[in-house]
């Protein structure tokens, strides 16, 4: 194997030309105010079948209502996540059953794949240009929580919406290092592999519900 490595790198080196210059890459960003970022985020996400709801402090109640309409009997969430306390405190007594997701996947695979109606996560940021969510899964809110359940529910803080992915990468210095898994999610799972016709919920969630909490709504 080191033999292959030596051969490939040696071959590339023998014919290497002078390295070109590092490309100039001004950060692509837009000076949109919060309202415009919110509007653009909502429009872009709606265009790919994502569902956006603007919420205030009573967001757990709003979410419970949406799950009830969808006929979801349970919601899996990370009890160590940043929003867990608010979620459980504000959850109505007649809401869908809250299921703590706090085991390794090996110990809950069956439940996660076959008995979960919806998953809830926080998210790191929103992208106004494309209506995207940026998730850095953590031990408290692991990767599969946003993938396996047929509905993925997310709470996004409006102030966390930036104009472009490029702006976020530069501001947070992603080049300095990333977690084991970082995700940009834009809408529910979809495919156009049959006759170029879009269908939703192929292998991932069929519905993506985004609650955008705007701190200014407290007044």
């Amino acid at each position, binding site marked *: 194997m080191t033999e*292959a490595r030596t051969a490939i790198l040696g071959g590339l080196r023998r014919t290497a030309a002078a390295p070109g210059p*590092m490309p100039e890459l001004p950060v692509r960003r837009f000076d949109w105010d919060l309202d415009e970022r919110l509007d653009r985020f909502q429009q872009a996400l709606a265009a790919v079948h994502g569902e956006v709801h603007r919420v205030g402090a009573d967001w757990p109640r709003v979410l419970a209502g949406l799950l009830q309409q969808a006929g979801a009997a349970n919601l899996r969430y990370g009890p160590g996540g940043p929003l867990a306390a608010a979620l459980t405190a504000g959850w109505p007594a007649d809401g869908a059953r809250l299921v703590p997701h706090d085991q390794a996947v090996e110990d809950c695979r069956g439940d996660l*794949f076959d008995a979960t109606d919806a998953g809830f996560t926080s998210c790191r940021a929103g992208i106004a240009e494309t209506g995207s969510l940026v998730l850095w899964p953590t031990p408290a809110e692991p990767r599969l929580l946003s993938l396996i359940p047929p509905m993925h529910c997310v709470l996004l803080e409006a102030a966390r919406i930036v104009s472009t992915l*490029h702006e976020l990468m530069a501001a947070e210095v992603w080049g300095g290092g990333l977690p084991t898994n970082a995700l940009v999610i834009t809408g529910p799972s979809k495919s156009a*592999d049959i006759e170029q016709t879009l269908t939703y919920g192929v292998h*991932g969630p069929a519905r993506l519900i985004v609650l955008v909490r705007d701190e200014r709504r407290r007044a």
Partner: protein
Amino acid sequence: MSLSSSPFRASAAAALGRDRARGNIRRAMDGLVAKRAAAFADAAELERLRDQGRAIRDYALSRLPALLEQLEERCSANGIQVHWARDAAEANRIVVGLCRSYGTDAVLKGKSMVSEEIGLNAALAAAGIEPVETDLGELIIQLAHEHPSHIVAPAVHKDRAEIAALFRKHFPDQCATVTDPGIEALTALARRVMRERFGAVRVGLSGVNFAVAETGTLCLVENEGNGRMSTTAPDVHIAVTGIEKVVARLEHLAPLLTLLTRSATGQPVTTYVNLISGPRRAGERDGPREVHLVLVDNGRARIHADPELRETLRCIRCGACMNHCPVYARIGGHGYGTVYPGPIGAILEPQLQGLERQGELAEASSLCGACAEVCPVRIPIPSLLNRLRFEHAAGQAVPGGGRPGRQRWVWRAWSQLHASPRLYRGMTAAAARLRGLLDGPLASALGPWTRTRTPPRVAPASLHVLARREGFGDD
């Protein structure tokens, strides 16, 4: 080499007889062209992005060995195990070896064109390991025992009725309840079938869209979620990629992702952009326990050695060149008889497989230039086609050597006429004098060609004669 032995001619001839597939492909291509155009409404922005895309890929290719070493070092520091493969056989041995070491009898596959290039499915099957294609399009063609006809939309040549028939044959139990062959029902069926495998198979395999040297990150883009499933749910993730897919910095992904998804399908972004920088760490509750990266050369270092042909390696596999190609729209991917079809295939495959075997693919173009106009990284495909045509022709002992009787005679005469100034001048003088014949008695000699075209008219005096009259010498 005789015409009948040319792999391209045979596949193209066969493809021209498949009217149903040709209709399906044509409809899809027209749709994709329109979607891309709408996604790049701002022409100035598009050209700026293409400049950036080209510069980013050129920079990476100009420092390829150093970046590959950096990628290996950062991946290793992140816990990703890096393997190197000189050719397809070596790559397959590595993957099969890994699968055996984990004792798996099946592998969940995300979409990967490199795995098609190296013939991985056949190698796995020969080792008794079932390759499970999870992408809907790849699943369809796997059931049909075919190969992708498009690098982004593998089953683009099939329509819903054909797919429904395939599913009924292969999943009779699941289909008992499906009476409606609608697209939603077919997609839902694929979801049910695959869900069982996602929960159970312990090794996943994927391609890579970009490998970031700076951070040791594998970037994968997809819409269905099967790519995330295959790389997240199993205990082991094996990523297979060509050595040219490396980029220097994480920030370089921003313009490349925009170019890739808009060029491919007209989407501003795919549903999932999946950045993988290592296996599950202590404390994490899911994700693969081991991640392997197999770096495949398979002819790329040889292409890299030629400064002009190296531009081929800028490709980010968006498929826009085939969507816009008049030849591809007529014969489809299977008409090329190669893993990579369309204009990019016509320059890449002769380089990967050699001009002796695939040189004729460079003829699979009208040189209309549409491919170069839409290429997000500005690969000059028509120039490279010309270069390969020249080399292919130069490699033949006799001009027109690969052609049948009458054509061979015409090309030889053409070549001799143009090689001798005296003969050439005599020919142009004769043509000028006899030009009246072409309009009259000889018009029908051009045959069917003039049925839909205006016949060319020979000028009364050649450019040579005109230049001489103006006082120019032979220099």
